[in-house]
């Protein structure tokens, strides 16, 4: 009984700690947004590089090459923009969450090979692009203050929506 009470109190304290900075938590800063967007692209490049090493499927390889090229181009733009704006990308819970999720998935994928790898990779690409597109639409774009950053994110959303469609076509073909 005592233990339960204590953990209840601890939970209440954690809850207060998490919910107190309401406004800061509601709206990420441009520095945080830039970091999330850059990290999202970087993680997809890493996944693609794994696919380029492991897959033998021509369509998967072409898709992975497309991902490396597009995400690199977007991230180059993002880096140039933060430099121009004098913003230092800032690590935050959202980007940390993406990194954690993605490194778990990478470890899982690394154990697979052949068609099993191809299917898991492309299924994850579908899920991943859905997550990132959702975050762009619901949080990152509406929260960004700088208009150039907002515009780059809007273009990014169009590009990643294209990737999602491409990944869905491939996933359907492979299953």
């Amino acid at each position: 009984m005592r233990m339960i009470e204590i953990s209840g109190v601890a939970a209440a304290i954690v809850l207060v700690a998490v919910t107190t900075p309401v406004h800061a938590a509601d709206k990420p800063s441009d520095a945080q947004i830039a970091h999330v967007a850059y990290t999202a692209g970087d993680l997809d490049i890493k996944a693609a590089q794994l696919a380029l090493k492991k897959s033998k499927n021509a369509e998967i390889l072409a898709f992975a090459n497309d991902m490396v090229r597009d995400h690199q181009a977007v991230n180059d733009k993002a880096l140039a923009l933060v430099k121009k704006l004098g913003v230092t990308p800032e690590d935050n819970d959202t980007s940390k969450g993406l990194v954690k999720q993605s490194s778990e998935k990478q470890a899982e994928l690394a154990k697979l090979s052949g068609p099993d790898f191809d299917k898991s990779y492309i299924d994850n690409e579908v899920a991943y692009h859905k997550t990132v597109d959702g975050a762009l639409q619901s949080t990152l774009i509406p929260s960004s203050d700088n208009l150039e950053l907002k515009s780059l994110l809007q273009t990014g959303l169009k590009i990643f929506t294209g990737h999602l469609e491409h990944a869905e076509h491939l996933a359907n073909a492979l299953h």
Partner: protein
Amino acid sequence: MLFVGRRAALIVLAQALAVAAPAGEIVQVKISDLAFVPAEITVNVGDTVEWVNEDFIDHTATAKSGEWDVMVPAGKSGQVQLDHAATITYFCRVHPGMTGTIRVSAKR
């Protein structure tokens, strides 16, 4: 004899090139913010469509029929000459939501 043969072959080649490239017009389609602009165009047989990519990422113009697949790198352009009357739908392989239509009409 061999020399004459070569010369004749060159003349045939020159004639073939002249036939393959009639003086058609070049019709431009912009690629801007992940869209073909205009998305629908009408051209004549022998005309060339030139896609001008204003985006910072590479695109393709790929016929759904598979008859051509044109790379249009970021900030660059790509061309295809239309050699028969048809309605051709095309898309970008990297971003398949990007689509366009070319109506190729037989020349009067």
